[in-house]
């Protein structure tokens, strides 16, 4: 039974582990040195293998895999919010809290998403990948609002405008999370108060 290990492609479990290492190294490099300076070679070097070709034939395939993985993970944590029977304001605050949980669990995602957005302005192949994520996110928000959303909004609110504003706020918050997840959590407390209209004392105003 003690078969000698054949040379060549690693056994399946090894392969999966190496693939995971490749993804982690790639994510780290993309978040720190950026898209241009991250190469298949620099990743292979960090992981300690000669070539990435067996795992990812191209950089764009590797980046797409990372973007999809990050999007899937994020969606798995927020999907249920769209189905809830709750006022829209509660659902949005739940999304902020879910984001907080995501960054606490995987802090590297904050830097990854913030920095890639800066790079997407320069590298078209990257912005194509992000566009898909953004579209999926837009669909998600549309569903969030369609369930019973409009009932929780005041008259005259433009739903698309609200979605874009919220997307912007989450981006601003993600970039804070890339600096400090503790400060991110505290800022979300203030944001939640603002959303629930308990932050600003309106008694003073005529």
């Amino acid at each position, binding site marked *: 039974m003690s078969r000698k290990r054949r040379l060549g492609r690693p056994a399946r479990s090894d392969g999966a582990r190496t693939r995971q290492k490749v993804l982690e190294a790639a994510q780290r490099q993309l*978040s*720190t*040195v*950026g898209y*241009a*300076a991250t190469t298949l070679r620099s990743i292979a070097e960090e992981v300690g293998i000669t070539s990435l070709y067996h795992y990812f034939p191209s950089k764009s395939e590797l980046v797409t895999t990372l973007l999809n993985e990050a999007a899937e993970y994020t969606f798995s944590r927020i999907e249920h919010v769209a189905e809830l029977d709750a*006022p*829209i*304001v509660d659902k949005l605050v739940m999304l902020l809290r879910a984001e907080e949980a995501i960054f606490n669990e995987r802090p590297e995602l904050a*830097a990854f998403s*913030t*920095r890639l*957005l*800066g*790079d997407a*302005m*320069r590298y078209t192949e990257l912005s194509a990948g992000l566009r898909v994520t953004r579209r999926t996110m837009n669909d998600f928000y549309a569903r969030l609002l369609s369930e019973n959303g409009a*009932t*929780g*909004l*005041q008259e005259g*609110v*433009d739903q*698309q*405008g*609200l979605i*874009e*504003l919220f*997307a*912007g*706020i*989450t*981006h*601003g*918050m993600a*970039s*804070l999370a*890339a600096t400090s997840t503790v*400060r*991110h959590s*505290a*800022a*979300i*407390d*203030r*944001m939640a108060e*603002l*959303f*629930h*209209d308990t*932050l*600003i*004392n*309106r008694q*003073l*105003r005529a």
Partner: protein
Amino acid sequence: MTSATRRPGRPADGNSEELREQILSVATKHLSTYGYAQATVKAIAEEVGITSGAVYHYYPSKQALIEVLSVRLITDAVTRLRRAAELQPDFVGRVNAIFDELDVLHREQPELAGFTLVLTSDVARYAELRIAYESCLSLYVDLCRWLIDEAVIAGELAPDIDRPSMVDMLHATITGIISTLSRVRPEHHGAIIDSAKRLFAGNLFVTP
């Protein structure tokens, strides 16, 4: 001299101020479009129509050039935001005036958003951007602090409010709006600003 092509190099003294401005404006464009690494002094000089040496005559290094232009760009922007806010009597009015002014600023200087994004994403990679980044950040933070101080004095925010998290929240909202304006088509900007104003004025959601 008339038939000779214009030699690149240091210009005559008369238009040096003008040239300095031109270098800054081309550098802003390059930095916000290509990022820090690809915004080279050589490429900037080429577009202005001078030699790299002439650029170095005005700015001793790329780092110095970027520091001057980022501090000036953000100082101008934040000064305008503050002026707009100062005309308003209360916290909500001031914040809303800032949102309106962000929209105007973005229309007049679309490169400002790209610049802000590049600065925040490149600072992690290039240590020499740190000073420019910190200076710009402190301008925004000062604006947020002023808004919060005034609101606490007026009783619009609780006296024991946690100020650091309040500053972070306002700052994240402002930078978030800047990034949104840069990626969404201009015809939607009005609706985005309207939602932001409603959020602070308390007439976005139906609350019990």
